[in-house]
Each structure stands twice: as C-alpha cells, then as structure tokens.
C-alpha cells in the first residue's frame, strides 16, 4: 500500500479511483479512435501531426492507469484491455466510431466529425487538466503538469482545423455543421462525474462539473463568435458513460483493442 493510499479514507479512495478511471478511459478510447486514422488522414503532414496527438493521449491514459495500478486496482494493461464495457467510465463521445466501415477494410471515416470531436474533447480536457493542477490528490497534480504542455498544442491543432474547415467551401461548412450536431448530441456526459459526483467534488479532486463546463464554453466562445456560430447547448446525457452506460460501439472497440492481449493475459507481450 502506498503512502498516498494510507492517508486516504475509503470514501476518498473511491472518489480518486472513479475520477482516474474516467480520465484514463476517456484518453484511452480517444487515442484508440485516433489510431484508426493512422495512414489514412487527409494528407501526409496531417497524418504525422495527428499521430503525435494520438500518441500523447495514449501516454496520458497510460499515466492514469499506472496511478490506478499503484492504488492496487490491478495491472495497468489489464485495466486498459480487459474491463468489460459496463465497467468502463469513458464518455460516450470518445467511444463513437470515426465513420462507416471497419478499419481493416476500406473505411469511410469522417474527417469533419474527427475535427469537431477532437476540438471539443481536447478543449474540455484542457479545462479539466487546468483544474487538476490544483487537485488535492498530488499524483494527479503531477500528471496534469506533464499533460498540460502537450495539450496546449493539441487544442491549437484542432482549433485551427475547426476554424479553417468552417471558413472554406460550402461543402466543408455543411459537413462541419452536421458534425457539430452529432458531437453535441453526445457531449452531455463529458462534463459529468456520474454517480460519484458528490464525492469527487467534496474531496476537491477537481472543480465542479458546472465550473468545468463553463470554462469549456468560455474557451470556445471567441472561436464561435468569430465564425458566427451559436455556442453549443450541452444536453442532458441520454447515456451516461461515467455510470457504465455505453453504445455497442464501445464493445466493438474493446474487442479489437484487446484481441491480441486476450490470447494470453499472463504472458509478457
């Protein structure tokens, strides 16, 4: 048992674990979706750039899973690969497919959807990371400092795509507007802490849901004003991923990402 763990009450430990699972699962799934684009981005330079973001996000997920491992929850790789869908705490937005088709065939991925999802997600992640820098849980503060510098570039990257595609051809604009609708419909649980909201907020692990959501909206505001768009209205979640409610898309992702690992979970790969 680590020193950090010894000092925590059962309730606090529960809150820390829950938040860590939410952060880890979000980045893990977000990175998984990004990795499917590898080699297929709209141009080669973008392939290289977005792959760096995908790798950074996987790196962040790995840090969170490692903290969970340190708290005695099991091996980081088991936590990432073996947990069933109903135990996963990622937001529904991060489990959505990139578009039609399986990545091993000839998928018709939607770049507009990827840009909108990535911009909204990384901007929300930034609001959380900024808040985590003040977390009462020290290991989270350390991760937040590490992730923060990379996240600055992630947001800048996706914001540029967002602004450019909405300021170009009619076709691009139309695709982006429909993508915004699709993404906003799923964004409800991105700001939710689920059933453990009260504990997570009470122990000061991160700012309240409302504060994070407002920070997100304020960060989007200048871009939306410049593009003459209405700020999104965050809907009540239809499914709350934080409480283990997910779409079938998550199960399909888990099947793929754990296919090799599940062949033998005891061995070294």
């Amino acid at each position, binding site marked *: 048992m680590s020193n950090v763990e010894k000092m925590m009450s059962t309730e606090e430990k529960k809150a820390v674990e829950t938040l860590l699972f939410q952060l880890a699962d979000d980045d893990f799934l977000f*990175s*998984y979706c990004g*990795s*499917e684009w*590898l*080699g*297929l*981005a*709209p*141009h*080669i*330079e973008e*392939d*290289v750039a977005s*792959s*760096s973001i*995908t*790798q950074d996000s*996987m*790196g962040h*997920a*790995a840090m969170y*899973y490692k903290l969970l491992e340190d708290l005695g929850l099991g091996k*980081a*790789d088991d936590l*990432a*690969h073996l947990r069933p869908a109903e135990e996963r705490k990622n937001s529904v937005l991060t489990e959505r497919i990139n578009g039609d088709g399986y*990545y*091993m*065939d*000839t*998928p*018709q*991925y939607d*770049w507009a959807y990827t840009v909108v999802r990535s911009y909204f997600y990384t901007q929300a992640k930034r609001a959380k990371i900024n808040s985590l820098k003040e977390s009462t849980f020290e290991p989270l503060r350390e991760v937040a400092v590490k992730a923060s510098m990379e996240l600055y570039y992630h947001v800048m990257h996706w914001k540029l795509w967002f602004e*450019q*595609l909405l*300021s*170009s*051809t009619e*076709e*691009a604009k139309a*695709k982006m507007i429909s993508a915004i609708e699709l993404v906003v419909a799923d964004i409800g649980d991105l700001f939710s802490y689920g059933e453990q909201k009260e504990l997570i907020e009470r122990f000061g692990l991160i700012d309240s849901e409302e504060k994070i959501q407002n920070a997100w909206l304020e960060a989007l505001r200048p871009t939306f004003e410049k593009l003459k768009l209405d700020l999104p209205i965050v809907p009540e979640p239809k499914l709350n991923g934080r409480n283990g409610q997910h779409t079938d898309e998550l199960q399909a992702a888990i099947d*793929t*990402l754990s*296919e*090799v*690992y599940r*062949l*033998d979970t005891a*061995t*070294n*790969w």
Partner: protein
Amino acid sequence: MVMMTAMTADEKMEYFMERIESGDKIQADDWMPEEYRQTLIKLISMHGISEIMGALPEKEWVPKAPSLYRKLGIMAKVQDEMGHGQLLLRVAEDLMKPYGKTRGDIMQDLFNEDLKFHNVFHMETKTWADAGLIGWLVDGAAIITQTNMLDASYGPYAKALQRICAEEVFHAQHGESIIMALAEGTEEQKAMVQDALNRWWPALLMFFGPPSKATTGASKQEATIKYRIRKNTNEELRQSFLDKYIPRILSLSLTIPDDTLHFDQEKNHWVYQQPDWSEFKKIIKNNGPKSQARLNLRRSSYENNAWVREALSAIVE
C-alpha cells in the same frame, strides 16, 4: 564556378560525371542529365510511396497492439514511416518541378499503377508476430539498402536518408523487442514467431530484388550504380542481410525455412534456395496477395478526403 550555359551537351555530361566521381553532391537546381533525373524520380518516388504504402500492413496491428507500451511503440513507428514518405516525396517533388508535376501526380501514378510500391508491402499480415517481424527484419533489410545509398551523389536524397536510417535503427530495435518477447514467451508465442518467419522468409529474400536482369527481365541496379546513387548490387546487399541476420535469427532458437541454406567458405557467400522469382514478377505488377486491397484502401481514403484537400486549397487561394 563553371558556366554550364557555355558548354556543349558532351562537356556538361563530362563535367557532371567528374563531379559525382569525385564525391561531389548534386543539388536540386544543378544541371543533371535527363537519365539521372529520371532514375532519381523513379527511385525516390517509389521509395517515398513505399514508405506510405508500407505503413498499411503495420497499421493493421496498431489498434490491436497487446499492451499500452506496445500501442505507443507501434504508433510512433508507423508515424515515422509516414514521415519518411513525406520527406522523400518532397525530394521527388523538387526533381519533378521541370515537368510541372506535383505530389498529386505521384498519387495518381500510384492509383493508375504506373508507380509501383516495394514488393515486401504486398504481403499479408496474419498475427501480432508479423508486426514484430516487419519491424525487425523488413526494417533491418531496409537499413542495409538505405545505408548503401547514404553517400548518394544526389545531395537532397542522401540528406533525407541520413535521418531515415537513424530512425530505422529504432524501428529494428522496436521490432526486435517484440520478437524477443515472443521468442522467450509461451509455446504459442514461439510458434507465432516461427510461423511469421516461415511466411516472410521468401519475401525477405525478394526484398533486395533479383540478382540480375536475367532473372526477371528488368533491373535498375546498373543505372543507379553508374550514377553513384548506390554502391552495391542486389546480391551483395542480400548477402550482407544474411550475414547480419542469420546468426541473430538462430540465436532466438528459430528455424530458417530453407534446408539448403549454408555458408560456402570457399566462395565466401551464403547459398540459399532462390525464392520464386515468378511470384516476384507477379507482385511487382500489383498482383501480390494484398496488392489490390492496399491500393484500394489508399484510393478510397484519398477519394473520401478529397473534400478536405479542396477546402484547404480554397483557403490558400
């Protein structure tokens, strides 16, 4: 400074050959014989496009990589390959400028099947061990052919290769690490590596191309050696590969699927079962096991994203 404009064609050619024979580097804007330019465009655009097509077999294993660490490693590796493709296509684009051609034309040539990609990337991947084997032995083979051109007479290509080779060394280590974990693992994991080696061995021999024109009816090696782009023949490179990797493969208790394989002390070279060169001919005509599937993936993703490229050019205009 030599005034090229005052020279006859023969004098230009003579001066050019003197330069490259003395080890001087040719730059993008220097005068160069047409055959040299054409040879370079063909070689470098094929190399660049092979990096990009080469991302596809490994990419199949990126989402499935069996740990967080392996997921990170293979993503970075495939990203590097795309980066090499970008670097090389930029070099090719400079060479194509006098013809008014761009990267779009290279992609179209690939789709029309006028431009081919390396024979090794037409092969199928079946298990995670293939992802390791590609990194270890395919990149290992690539290091041998590419270091052979590090001193290429064309400066921009030599410069790009410096960086590419440095990264390929990491790739080979990444692949070796995957293979070693499997080779030291369970019986199933060991069988997985052996099976991958059995399937990839002929492709690895073919990697270096036919020993001579006589084998397949075409080989670019003469022109590339004449112009000091590369130093050694296909067979010499294949022998270097066998020198380097046979001991390593055997040290992992793997069996090389060739009963005839041995080192001839007298002739000082490896004797091996020739791969089926008629199969090679099929592959380089895009009739290999995965040639059309990979081309279709590249075509369909290019088409699917056409609106993005149009949107970006509209902003530039």
